[in-house]
């Protein structure tokens, strides 16, 4: 029982972590809390669903969803944040403009797909189950877990070992200084939004596959948990997101199993609140990707 | 009146201020000079509670200031200006000065909420006084301009007006002449001298402009690498070989 709960918690936690990476990346580079992120999570899932229903193989559909999510992220940056950057607006305006774009994206999904919950075809999501000791899980769950981990490792490597990563870190550290050494700020911002949003979209697809449900409101079930993840792990830290995601996933499943399912979310937010008060930098906040 | 007793402030391995002992008497225009990074701003931050000393004590008329919060120190009669202006950017010059009167303002909240006439009259009196103060500093026309739209020299004078408005016993000025032209500097000097003579405020003037410090201050202390290397009258300071060396060193490297 305990092992099974741990395994379940790890699966869902890895999806939370992937989703939260988008928050952390954008906050780290632009100091913005992007409240449209959950809507891209949802649109990524819809895109993959549409592709799958058109007969596209699942892996290609996931890539397509990621691409769509990334482009929606770049669009988001252009319409909601770029104009505010230009006039050096305070921190409040971008928060509201990201909410506005989130409304537009969710509204579009509502208009196109209606308010009902959609499902992937059964033969797409049905995979063999694996039993390891006391834990049972599906091949798909395992793939989701490993896929999330691989994407996070890839992102960390990208930031640490490539020219692009160096530019992102420089901009996160000090945009003005980065500009002085010849880094194109706007290009870095666009790329950051593309990557963050593509990851968010993949998280949405994996989440939808895990529960086999896609709906226009699915973002609201993760947007606050994503915040809890980055606060717990440390804002701006990629390993922190992973750790935070796994811990939140585990705490959810364990609290359902051993406390009461009613207070499941209260425990997540109590953790969030306590971490903010006791250690606002989170568990790994000091080792953020600014210094990766 | 203000005394620093063997005050040290360390930032990591850096001794920003080291074993500094200073006594600033009442009604005196006291100069604090030193090359860049000597620890002058840090000394002001220590007095105003923005930084806590690593060792040593600071007191105002025998009352300990260290370990008090900045707002408590301000309420005891210590006001300051900042090296880079810290006006409230979206308030007008006048509103900035009115906020400066916070400690002494008596327009009670309840009276204001109820629209009680004496409270409203009080608030009006504050604005009148603020306008006068700006007038004394030659800023009458700029009183209703938003602070961040003011020229740098004007911002400095508004900041000075805001500090004076607090009716301090001691006023700490961090490079008030930086960026001013000679005419403005001359004027600033007269204003500072007048503050000491007419209002009886003690002033601690941190400044790079030697001519200003030498002509205005009665007594001067010199910091170098956080340590006090000399203290005395302008004439003594001017001829002190240690001071000359500290400054020549800077000029040579500059």
């Amino acid at each position, binding site marked *: 029982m305990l092992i099974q709960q741990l395994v379940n918690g790890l699966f869902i936690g890895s999806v939370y972590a992937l989703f939260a990476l988008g928050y952390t990346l954008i906050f780290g580079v632009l100091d913005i*809390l992007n*409240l449209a992120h959950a809507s891209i999570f949802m649109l990524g899932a819809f895109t993959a669903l549409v592709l799958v229903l058109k007969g596209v193989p699942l892996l290609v559909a996931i890539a397509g969803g990621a691409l769509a999510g990334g482009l929606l992220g770049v669009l988001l940056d252009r319409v*909601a944040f770029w104009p505010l950057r230009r*006039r050096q607006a305070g*921190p409040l*305006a971008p*928060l*509201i*403009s990201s*909410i*506005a774009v*989130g*409304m*537009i994206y969710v*509204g579009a999904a*509502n*208009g196109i797909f*209606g*308010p009902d919950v959609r499902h992937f075809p059964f033969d797409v999501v049905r995979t063999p189950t694996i039993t390891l000791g006391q834990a049972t899980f599906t091949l798909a769950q395992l793939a989701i877990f490993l896929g999330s981990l691989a994407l996070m490792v890839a992102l960390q490597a990208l930031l640490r070992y490539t020219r692009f990563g160096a530019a992102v870190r420089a901009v996160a550290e000090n945009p003005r200084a980065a500009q002085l050494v010849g880094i194109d700020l706007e290009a870095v911002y666009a790329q950051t939004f593309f990557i963050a949003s593509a990851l968010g979209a993949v998280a949405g697809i994996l989440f939808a596959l895990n529960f086999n449900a896609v709906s226009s409101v699915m973002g*609201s079930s993760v*947007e*606050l948990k994503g*915040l809890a993840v980055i606060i717990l792990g440390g804002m701006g830290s990629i390993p922190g997101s992973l750790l935070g995601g796994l811990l939140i996933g585990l705490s959810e499943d364990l609290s359902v199993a051993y406390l*009461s399912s*009613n*207070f499941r979310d*209260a425990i997540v*937010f*109590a953790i*969030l*609140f306590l971490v*903010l*008060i006791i250690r*606002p930098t989170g568990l790994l906040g000091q080792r953020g990707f600014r210094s990766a | 009146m203000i005394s620093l007793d063997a005050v040290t402030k360390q930032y990591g391995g850096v001794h920003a201020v080291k074993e500094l002992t200073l006594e600033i008497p009442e009604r005196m225009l006291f100069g604090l000079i030193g090359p860049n990074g000597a620890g002058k701003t840090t000394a002001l931050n220590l007095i*105003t509670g*923005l930084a806590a000393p690593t060792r040593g004590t600071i007191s105002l008329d025998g009352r300990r200031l260290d370990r008090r*919060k*900045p*707002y408590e120190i*301000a309420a005891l009669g210590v*006001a*300051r200006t*900042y090296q880079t202006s*810290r*006006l*409230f950017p*979206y*308030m007008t010059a006048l*509103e900035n000065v009115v906020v*400066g009167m*916070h*400690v002494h303002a008596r*327009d*009670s*909240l309840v009276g*204001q*909420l*109820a*629209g009680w006439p004496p409270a409203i009259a009080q*608030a009006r009196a504050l604005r009148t006084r603020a306008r006068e103060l700006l007038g004394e500093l030659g800023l009458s026309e700029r009183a209703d301009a938003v602070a961040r739209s003011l020229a740098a020299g004007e911002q400095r004078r508004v900041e000075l007006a805001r500090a004076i408005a607090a009716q301090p016993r001691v006023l700490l000025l961090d490079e008030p002449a930086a960026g001013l032209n000679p005419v403005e500097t001359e004027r600033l000097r007269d204003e500072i001298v007048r503050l000491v003579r007419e209002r009886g405020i003690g002033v601690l003037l941190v400044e790079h402009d030697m001519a200003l410090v030498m002509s205005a201050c009665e007594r001067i202390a010199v910091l170098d690498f956080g340590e006090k290397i000399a203290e005395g009258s302008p004439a003594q300071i001017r001829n002190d070989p240690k001071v000359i060396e500290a400054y020549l060193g800077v000029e040579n490297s500059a």
Partner: protein
Amino acid sequence: MHELVAAYHAHSALLNEIGINALLALSVWVTLACGQLSLGNMGFMAIAAYASVLLVTRGHWPFFGAALTGAAMAAAAGLLLGWPVLRLRGVFLAIATIGFGEIVRIFAINLPFTGGAEGIAGIPQLVTTAIIYSSLALIAFLLWRLTRSRAGRAFAAIAQDEVAASGLGINPAAYKLAAFAIGAFIAGYAGALAAFSSFFISPSDYSFGRAVDVLAFAVAGGIGSVAGPIAGAALLTLLPEWLRFLQNYRDVVNGAILLLVIIFLPQGVWSIVRRRSAR
């Protein structure tokens, strides 16, 4: 005749909603005026709503006694929340307050006396449009006077430069706590008004989404004055009604208009009115 009555009821409900939203917008505005972004106001609203409903239905209290008690409880919760989060800034403060709001909501679902996820039904309609708007007028007036007072100046100073403010003798912690408590009181009072002007309350009335909407009211209306949040609440409450004909696409246009306001009216919609009257 029936249609007339129905139309009146439909409109009075909308009118009530505008008034209550305006109060909620003012409640976030108060904390913003002191430089703090709080998204926990739904938690305060819920505390006062449940408390006042229980006091009236079970304790047989009169409405105003119950509403003010509920609001006072919300204010006390505001102090309790405000104290530990004093040192948090910006987004971190916002997230902490979101956490608080969610915890309150989850408790509302699970406590034995709050009616669970279905909430409490059959609440007597004790609140009229007149009560809502006279409350709004009084609170807006008091807040306007507050901005003119010593405390109001201190709020603005803290919001613009906390260090400079404390250097002038202003105690930031005290004023921030006061702002939290005032905001919580207003949100709580609005919660009581809302509860007694509809037949039922449920935890979903106090969701994160609503907190975000309320913040949008204040910012889109303009946080430079008391009138801004009221104007923003009116506009953004009416907008979805006007856009009903778009059906499922409604939020696209709604969001687009909010986006245009934020991008092209940095001082909020109220600044248009002000500019007109200044001419």
